[in-house]
């Protein structure tokens, strides 16, 4: 087993542990913290695939901002730290749906024929990506800022509307 494989299994185990923690802990805040762990471990998988930029995006946006958004939502809603809040009469249906999805994905994984040989990853160096982004695709890059602006203004308008001001 090469050391890349060792690292992969380590990172994958951390991801699975984090994901299990999200669904198994009683406290929702602990769930959010486990979610951070799982997302950071996925960043490790991206690094193993030599996708550095994706790893940065994963850590900064998913591990940082999105989990902060989730924690904010917990502060805003009337979630009590009671374990019952997480459980409801939907439990058997949830188990059924999750089980069906598991069976479906396992069947899909077994029936697809995977390419036999592993191929070499083509690494996109950070520098090349930056060149492409700021030299060849400068206009779409600026458009991205407009998209972000629209998202920001939309969020503000929606929130202000809720307040009735």
């Amino acid at each position, binding site marked *: 087993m090469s050391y890349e494989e060792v690292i992969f299994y380590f990172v994958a185990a951390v991801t699975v542990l984090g994901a299990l923690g999200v669904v198994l802990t009683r406290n929702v805040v602990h769930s959010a913290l486990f979610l951070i762990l799982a997302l950071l471990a996925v960043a490790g998988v991206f690094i193993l695939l030599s996708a550095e930029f994706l790893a*940065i995006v994963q850590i900064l946006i998913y591990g940082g901002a999105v989990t902060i958004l989730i924690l904010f939502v917990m502060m*805003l809603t009337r979630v009590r730290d009671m374990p019952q809040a997480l459980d409801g009469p939907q439990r058997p249906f949830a188990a059924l749906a999750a089980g069906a999805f598991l069976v479906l994905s396992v069947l899909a994984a077994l029936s697809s024929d995977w390419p036999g040989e592993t191929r070499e990853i083509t690494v996109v160096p950070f520098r090349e990506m930056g060149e492409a982004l700021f030299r060849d695709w400068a206009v779409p*890059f600026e458009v991205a800022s407009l998209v*972000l*602006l629209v998202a920001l203004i939309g969020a503000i308008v929606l929130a202000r509307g809720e307040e009735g001001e």
Partner: protein
Amino acid sequence: MIQDLFADYIAVLIAAILGILLVGGALMGNYILAPRQASRAKSLTYECGMLPIGRSRTQVHFRYYLFAILFLIFDIEAVFLFPWAVVFLDIGKAAFYEMLFFMLILGFGLLYAWKKGVLSWR
């Protein structure tokens, strides 16, 4: 190429594992070594003073969600700064103005939020 990349990140991995072991070891050491005797007086919030009433969790007003949204937007901007910083010297002026324009557009969003009173802490 790939080997070099891994060599860089193995240092990160080792640092992360050592950090986790250090913190975990300190917490475990505290757990093992420290004597524990629970008593009612110890679990009070304040040693002297009024007893706190109600729950420790308070509900925050909905409008503060916008702070998180603002953070998310500017976090995405920060992500774009990384590839920009790498190629900034090669491309030169054009890259500078591109990023300036990008930030001005997002700054307009911040200005809008400010004018709408989103940033005021009430």
